[in-house]
């Protein structure tokens, strides 16, 4: 579905990605793991055209080079950015409607209402908070809203940046369980996570990034068992995870 070949990304004169090649098949959850500064978020941003990039990048056979980031949604790519970036003073309902802004004109209101119903099934908490300001939600609820808002665009590929950041372990579990459900419904997900263990638990495959290059790839199960990965990326997370209980 998404094919990336020799992708370079730059922040000014700094090369953040130096020749990344990877792919995502339809219906997969693929995780990008790696240390801080390895280039995980940069890779998402490069896919979305938010940083200067070079290389080959195609989505469902169509090149993304030259496609402006605001047009990605209509191709079927939605990003859930790190830090959620909700519209704090607006209500939950308004945030969700904004997620569907591309579709208001062309699609019957009925269809959007159905999507909202689906989302309330996925995140029952949001229905309870419909009229509440997004900024007053808890961290976990904000993350749910951010995902829900992205889903309102009916994407085929969902890009998620650190959905577990700053959330309590139980909340992380809820969010990840939701992603698994989305995959079962046919969604394709590219997941960037600092919390590698949690990401590998739900992913099908993963790539390990180290200073701008992919150094290891494989099934998530294999990487969970890989001793180098365990040492480099799972040690601390695991402790945090178990001590938090």
């Amino acid at each position: 579905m998404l094919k990336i070949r020799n992708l370079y990304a730059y922040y000014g004169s700094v090369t953040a990605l130096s020749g990344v090649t990877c792919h995502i098949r339809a219906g997969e959850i693929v995780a990008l793991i790696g240390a801080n500064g390895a280039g995980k978020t940069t890779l998402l941003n490069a896919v979305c055209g938010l940083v200067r990039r070079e290389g080959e990048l195609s989505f469902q056979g169509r090149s993304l080079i030259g496609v402006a980031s605001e047009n990605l949604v209509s191709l079927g790519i939605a990003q859930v950015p790190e830090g959620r970036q909700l519209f704090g003073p607006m209500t939950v309902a308004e945030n969700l409607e904004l997620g569907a802004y591309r579709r208001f004109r062309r699609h019957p209101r009925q269809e959007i209402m159905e999507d909202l119903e689906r989302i309330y099934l996925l995140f029952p908490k949001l229905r309870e908070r419909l009229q509440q300001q997004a900024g007053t939600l808890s961290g976990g609820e904000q993350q749910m809203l951010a995902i829900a808002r992205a889903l309102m665009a009916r994407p085929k590929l969902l890009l998620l940046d650190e959905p577990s950041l700053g959330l309590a372990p139980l909340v992380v579990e809820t969010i990840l369980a939701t992603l698994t459900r989305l995959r079962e419904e046919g969604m394709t997900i590219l997941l960037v996570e600092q919390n590698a263990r949690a990401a590998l638990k739900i992913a099908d495959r993963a790539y390990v990034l180290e200073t701008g290059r992919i150094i290891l790839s494989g099934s998530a199960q294999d990487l969970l068992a890989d001793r180098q990965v365990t040492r480099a990326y799972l040690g601390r997370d695991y402790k945090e995870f178990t001590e938090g209980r």
Partner: protein
Amino acid sequence: MRQPQFEAMATEELELLQLERLQSTLTRAFRQVKFYRRQFDSHGLAPEAIRDLGDLQRLPFTTREDLSENYPYGLFAVPLRDIVRIVSSPGTTEKPLVVGYTSQDLKLWQELLARLYTAAGVSRDDIVQFILPPGLANWRRDLMAGAEYLGASVIPAASLNFAKELMVMRDYKTSVLVTTPSIARHLLTVMDRLNLAPAELSLRRAFLVAAPLPGELRREIEAGLHLRIATAYGITEVMGPGLAFSCEANAGFHFCADHFYPEIIDPETGEALPLGAEGELVITTLSTVAFPLVRFRSGDLTSLNPEPCACGRTLVRLGPIRGRVDAIFSVGGIKVHPDQIGRLLKDLLGGHLPHWRYEVQTEAGLESLALDITVDEALFSDEIKALEGLCYRVRRYFQDHLGIHARITLKEIGSGQLGN
């Protein structure tokens, strides 16, 4: 097909998979193995320079001599504590060959073996009997573990004599025999002697490994044992037998190109040759973690056939192995370099190296090393017993060090045109 998603992958998809795995292998090799970093540096290259599969040609080769110079752990790309298996074999150079595996590598390797058995028509319902000589201990262990992983019932090699092996085969209703071509051929002779008809056996398949199988020999064994033969190609340096395998269409060896990248080169110039041309097989690992190999020269002469196969697999096919680019030869499936013979003799005889000459002999299918040694002054004795002792010691020494059977003939000085 065990893994149709890979074995019958569309070419374009496979190439992207190969490229991403190649790039990550090269990055790991460059960052974690001094030898590869030097190799890259000496050509003024960084892993980033390899932007497509064809760029691989810009990198230098890795040879058996490189492996020997980096003995034992110099080419390992992970710390020893991540290695769960260290496989050592005599190799063909001065130093033994050492290959390390992480637990991930072992898993991959089991999966590849299961792939090969499945293509050979072997399933968990089979009873698989192994007759492989001690010199092929690594292959024996690999193939047995693979059959067990598949879930078949395994009868390990018992080093019984061949008559006993045949009795086991008949009584235990063995359905698959795993052995070398020469032993399979020898079993026909033994069956003849025992008056054992193939109909008394339950064999359906033979899986013949470690040596090439000429067409005539294949037909003789298939007819004599009433079964179909499957074969495989592999080298100890790269995961042993799991590298390439024959399929039901029996039209070459499907190369596991999702995990290993094959090239064919001109052995003289090192230039890459187009698909279909015959040359030396060069292998780059794409998935192995502990022991990555970049452009390893196998020494085997063969060709690559990218045409689609009747079996439905898209994995490129290796043609028959036509020979070697070097002097390495095989005795019953065990690879030997002539220099090793000289080295072993010199070791055994306290630094003295007499004239010697060798030949691989076949008797009723079984191969042995016929070694003529010239008895010079340093070796001479007027006691028959001492000379017999010499023969015995040489025989034992070759058995112990290479796992091959040697027949020793002592020659007088001037009795023949002995060279060396």
